[in-house]
């Protein structure tokens, strides 16, 4: 069962990247350093939890909904305990104790606490055997719900079939989930395999997950359980009609990373943007917070059979795509190591990279192929996510369409797993219905013609392309070596990635990080670990 967790798309005949002669000891050393870096992060943060993780525990227990003024019940309960300095043992202990005491269901208890009829604070203290049993039972039920959705996905893919690699991935971003549904259904009919629903700008900095359907978002809709369910249903309907399973993608990122992962797992999302470092660098979220949260979010994604998408493409929007190519490689290796620690399997690793070199630079295409082939060879079997040009898109849509066609060519030539299709109107507006159609048509044309090319071509030994790939790998090794010596958190404060420096105690969300007491208890963590071991995803 391990290795087939996400039931990722098949490769058509002849599809694959030309062989690349990399120095095997260098590759092994780079991977070893990344594992060392990830293990060090894990050791440093093992004794910490966050308010987001505790809210996730409640959500996995079945707590949903919000108070009349829109504060999610999970937030209300955790915030109350945190303010009283009673969270160090975890939310599960007082919550389960109160369940035993009141005899209420999890949802009814959460409502009663929010209404002021039950005070969780009076239940904080020692864990009784009864509470322990109730907690374990609720956690098992949460895990069972997620496992059922995973099996449902596998059954649907088995029955309907799915697109072949590279999967064609497009975004919808109208700001109204009901318009998004129309745009997504049209995209599926035009050949899209993955629909990513862009989030409303600013959600990453909200320390709660909003409720309900979004009809007026900015640059997207909120990641809410209601929006997830609505889009899931729409894609299942159109997929059944088309005879092709359509994947749904959203963002488990920002201050509510693990909660959104849990909601996505419960609503059978298939992919989640989920990067260990992105929020720290680009949203100035505290690194202790994000590194704790990413681990829990990834364990849930591992269980749910979700594919995570990492965001290394973003490094190249601020730094130069040639000078900083090695930072992408180093970061994908670190992201991989952190992901594997959480139980994610090879076919769940949508590691990100991008085509962002100035297209007018001599040999730009050669360099892009070298970079894309290098990443391909470093992560065999992983559904790599290749991101389109954004930085050098100009508003000249005709030129942009050509850049995107070249991008599609490099993607199919180097055997990428997930191709995020570029839009000719990139940097001008969120995609119109026909921008998406034209992008899908272009991708289909290029993919059809070049599908079997990669396995037929050979890279010139000792030539420019091979030399470039080896150079980027060597530079990544130097960077990984430095990070391994000083530790990831120190490295982040030195600005090694995207030329952005962050301090371990700076940024947003640090007030939601706390040290676990010796009595800390999270039955959902135990249940997830057991399930991951049972599935062969952890040993």
């Amino acid at each position, binding site marked *: 069962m391990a290795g087939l967790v996400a039931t990722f798309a098949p490769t058509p005949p002849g599809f694959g990247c030309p062989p690349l002669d990399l120095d095997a000891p260098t590759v092994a050393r780079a991977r070893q350093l990344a594992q060392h870096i990830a293990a060090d992060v894990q050791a440093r943060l093992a004794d910490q939890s966050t308010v987001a993780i505790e809210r996730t525990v409640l959500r996995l227990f079945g707590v949903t909904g919000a108070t009349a003024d829109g504060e999610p019940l999970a937030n209300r309960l955790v915030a109350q305990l945190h303010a009283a300095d009673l969270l160090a043992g975890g939310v599960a202990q007082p919550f389960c104790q109160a369940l035993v005491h009141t005899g209420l269901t999890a949802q009814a208890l959460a409502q009663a606490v929010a209404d002021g009829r039950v005070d969780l604070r009076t239940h904080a203290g020692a864990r009784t055997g009864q509470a322990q049993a109730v907690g374990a039972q609720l956690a098992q039920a949460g895990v069972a719900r997620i496992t059922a959705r995973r099996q449902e996905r596998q059954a649907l893919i088995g029955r309907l079939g799915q697109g072949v690699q590279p999967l064609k991935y497009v975004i919808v971003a109208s700001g109204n989930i009901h318009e998004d549904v129309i745009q997504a259904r049209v995209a599926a009919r035009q050949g899209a395999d993955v629909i990513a629903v862009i989030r409303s700008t600013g959600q990453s900095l909200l320390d709660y997950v909003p409720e309900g359907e979004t009809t007026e978002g900015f640059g997207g809709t909120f990641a809410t359980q209601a929006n997830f369910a609505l889009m899931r249903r729409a894609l299942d309907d159109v997929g059944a009609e088309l005879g092709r399973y359509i994947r749904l993608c959203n963002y488990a990122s920002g201050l509510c990373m693990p909660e959104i992962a849990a909601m996505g797992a419960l609503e059978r999302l298939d992919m989640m943007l989920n990067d260990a470092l992105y929020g720290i660098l680009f949203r100035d979220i505290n690194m202790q917070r994000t590194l704790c949260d990413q681990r829990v979010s990834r364990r849930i994604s591992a269980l749910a059979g979700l594919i995570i998408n990492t965001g290394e493409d973003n490094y190249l929007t601020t730094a130069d795509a040639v000078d900083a190519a090695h930072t992408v490689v180093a970061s994908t290796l670190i992201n991989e190591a952190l992901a594997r620690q959480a139980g994610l399997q090879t076919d769940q690793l949508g590691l990100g990279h991008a085509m962002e070199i100035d297209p007018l630079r001599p040999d730009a295409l050669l360099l892009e192929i070298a970079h894309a082939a290098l990443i391909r060879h470093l992560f065999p079997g992983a559904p790599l996510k290749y991101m389109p040009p954004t*930085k050098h898109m100009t508003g000249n849509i005709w030129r942009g369409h050509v850049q995107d066609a070249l991008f599609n060519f490099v993607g199919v030539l180097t055997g990428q797993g997930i191709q995020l299709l570029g839009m000719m109107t990139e940097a001008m507006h969120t995609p119109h219905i026909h921008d998406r159609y034209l992008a899908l048509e272009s991708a289909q044309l290029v993919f059809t013609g070049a599908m079997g090319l990669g396995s037929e071509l050979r890279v010139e030994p000792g030539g420019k392309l091979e030399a470039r790939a080896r150079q980027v790998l060597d530079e990544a090794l130097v960077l990984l070596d430095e990070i391994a010596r000083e530790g990831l958190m120190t490295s982040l404060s030195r600005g090694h990635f995207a030329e952005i420096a962050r301090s371990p105690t700076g940024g947003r969300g640090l007030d939601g990080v706390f040290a676990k007491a010796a009595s800390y208890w999270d039955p959902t963590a135990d249940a997830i670990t057991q399930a991951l071991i049972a599935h062969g995803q952890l040993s």
Partner: protein
Amino acid sequence: MRAVDPKHVRAYGDTLDDGQIMLSFSLPVPFGEEAKEAARQLCRQMGLEAPQVYHAHDLGEGFTFLTVYARSPHTVDTTQLRVTKMDTPHLGKDAIEALASEKFTRKIRVLGACTGDDAHTVGIDAILNVKGYHGDKGLEAYHCLAVRNLGAQVSNERLLDEARAFEADVVLVSQIVTQKDCHRSNLAALIDLAEADGVRRDLLFVCGGPRLSHQVALELGFDAGFGAGTLPSQVAGFLVQRLAAR
């Protein structure tokens, strides 16, 4: 060959005054002859003549994508155009530094931010970071400027507080997200707030973003605005020349 009549200019395809225009758009009309006819009628209502549907594609869900060529009989009098353009000349970094050292005894203090919910720092970073954009060094690389970049999602209130604390001469605002014109309301609110605080005249307010222009910036009460593709030296040159003129 006839000369262009600047008082009566038409669109040009391959023959003067042929008025050739291309359009592409989608209609919420199911694919078929009706969709094509609907497109032609829409073009005629736009004042276009002889619309020809070159291509129609079935998008599904009751939508059709169309590409139409048509002739526009309308003319523009280009002798009567009035546009708002940046009136300061574009100087290189060395010339800007030289002008600043001649006119000012201290560094000009520039505070930058991406405001509102907008989380995209790519624009403000391209202008401010040392590295700059397109081989043109960012404002942090200028000796004559002291730069502070507040990053993304800064509220207008905080921006003005920080401007006071930093003793800024210039406030630089980037706006990338433009859905439902949120950039306009957000920028206008900043100027309102600055006026209410009585600091509007003490500071130079400059905005930038892919959907902004100098003209839009002036309409919103800013001193200047920069659109897509702007180089950092264009911004630096404007700041130094405008402040030198004060």
